[in-house]
Each structure stands twice: as C-alpha cells, then as structure tokens.
C-alpha cells in the first residue's frame, strides 16, 4: 500500500482516538449518572427524545468509532492473519460502513424515532 495512504490512515486513527478519548469519558459519566439517579428506560428515552445535543454527541461518537476501529482491525488482520493489505483495508471499509449504519440507526432510534 502507498506510503501516503498509510500515513493518512495513521493520521485519521490518531485524530479519531483524540475524539474517542473525550467521547468515552462523557459516555461513561452519563451512564454512571443515569444509574445513580435510578432512571428507568422509559425515563431515559423521555430525556433523549428530541435532544439535539445528545444526538449530535452520539453521532460524532459513532463516526469516530467508524473511523478508528476499522483501521486497527485492518492492521490486526494484516499482521496476525497474514492478509494482503488491499484485502484487509477493503474488509475494514465494509466494517466501517457496518459500524456507521448500525450506530447511526441506534442514535436515530433513541433521539428521533
């Protein structure tokens, strides 16, 4: 694979990791808050429904995952399974699409539907 592509993949994985570090901290904080408050599923959905900030936050979270995770998976497939780089990157792209679709569908379900 071209050196420029590898360098860009590294860059995007690094940038998405920075985003994820913030997102995961807020996400965990939110979970702990909800559990301590003893909120039911219905009460949680009542608060998330129509909440633009919540939707934007989890939308960004999902997209950061869709960038970060597949790059790592491509590297693992490459090194541990001995796949050709072209195949591992193609598989990673499909996995990225899967994460994005499933994640955004979940955000849609919790915020809009």
């Amino acid at each position, binding site marked *: 694979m071209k050196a420029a592509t590898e360098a860009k993949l590294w860059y995007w994985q690094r940038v998405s990791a920075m985003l994820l570090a913030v997102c995961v901290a807020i996400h965990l904080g939110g979970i702990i808050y909800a559990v301590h408050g003893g909120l039911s599923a219905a009460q949680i959905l009542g608060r998330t429904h129509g909440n633009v900030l919540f939707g934007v936050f989890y939308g960004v979270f999902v997209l950061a995952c869709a960038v970060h995770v597949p790059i790592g998976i491509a590297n693992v497939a490459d090194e541990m399974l001995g796949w050709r*780089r072209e195949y591992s990157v193609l598989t990673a792209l499909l996995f990225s699409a899967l994460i994005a679709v499933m994640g955004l569908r979940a955000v849609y379900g919790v915020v809009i539907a």
Partner: protein
Amino acid sequence: MSNLQVRVWRGKDQGRFATYEVPRAASQTVLDVVTYIQRQLDPTLSYRFACRVGMCGSCAMTVNGVARWTCRTHVAKVAKNGELEIAPLSNLKVIKDLVTDMSEFFDKWARALGRFKGSRTRHDDFALVKPDSAQRAAADAAIECIGCGVCYASCDVVAWRKEFLGPAALNRAWSLANDVRDAQQGERLRAVAGDAGCHSCHTQGSCSERCPKKIEPTAGIAGLKRLAAAAAMRGEL
C-alpha cells in the same frame, strides 16, 4: 571465586548449546567469558568483536535471553546462579556460532536513506545550525547509535514482518530528518513511511528499553509518523 557454567550456541540456524566451565574473575565481562572459551577451551568457537569499549557495536549477543553489548555487560549483572546462556542475536541469520549476518540489518539502513546528502559545495559557506534549536536537539538524541543490532534483535515487529526496516534504520532516518542541511527529506519520508516503515511500529518500546546507548528509537519512530502524516495531509508524500 567459583566457576561459571556457560552454555554457548554452536552451529548455524540449526545447532545446539555446548556447556563450558569458565573461571570467575573480578569485573569480568560477558565478552571476557567468550574470549576465554575461544582461547583456552575451544579455538573453533566463532564470535565477533573489535574495540572492547562499547564504541564499535560488533559484540552484541543474546545473553540469558536478552540482547546485550557483551563488552560492557558485567557477568555479575546477568549471571543467574552462576550460569550464563550465550546465543547469537535474534532476527538475523546465523553465519556460525555467535556470528550473525548483519547485511540485512545494514541494507535496511540504506533503504531508509540513512546517509547524509547535502546541497552545498566546498565553495559555499558553512551551514549554521543553532546548538539549542529543537531540530538539533532531536538529532542529538538519536545520533549516538553504534549499529550494534540490539534493538533490531529485540523488536517483535521485525520478527513477524520481515520487510520492516527496524528501529536502528528508522532512528537513523529520524536523525537525518532533523538535519536542516540534508537535501532529500521528502524522498526519505517516502522511504520510511508505510507498512514496511514507521507505521508498522507498535510502540512497544523494547528497542528503547534495551538500547545500550540509551537512545529511544520509539520516540524517533513516533516523530517520523508525525512528519509523514503532516506531509501526507499536505499532499507532499
């Protein structure tokens, strides 16, 4: 002082450990032990050394499972229960006994464009490099490599990815990437980026942990990743 029980690798990639009994001495180094075996016990033993003072990088071997420069490694520091196991460096082909073929190791330095190429001639004035500049400091931190191969033998990525340039070649590239006089920066970044270069490094740090000169190739490789990423995003890679 009691005797040392020393197991030494004999053969090529296939071979066996032979055991020798070597008298213990004060301030004895591992290289002293190997030299004693060859000169007093078995003249057919092959090993490599030159300066004996930690400058030439010739005498690195695997001592009790860890790659070390043997001329500066005291037996007292590494012997366990009066026993030593001495083997050739890992990740390199064995020529005979403790001598490895270093050609792949140095070929990779060449592939990483590890040689200086200036743009000035003898008619130009000297280049002025401020000693306290950030780039000079970064080059300084990487420049004392003696090419012993300890980092290369300690690197897991080299073990599973044969084309990986390795810590020493990338460290050399990093020192030149910080040399403001060098005229082939873009070409070098293209040579060291990608899946055979700096982007394969897992940042495990074995090279930095074991470098006898206390160089940190891991930090240099991270620097190359940053330079390569910046160049790629500018469309210059």
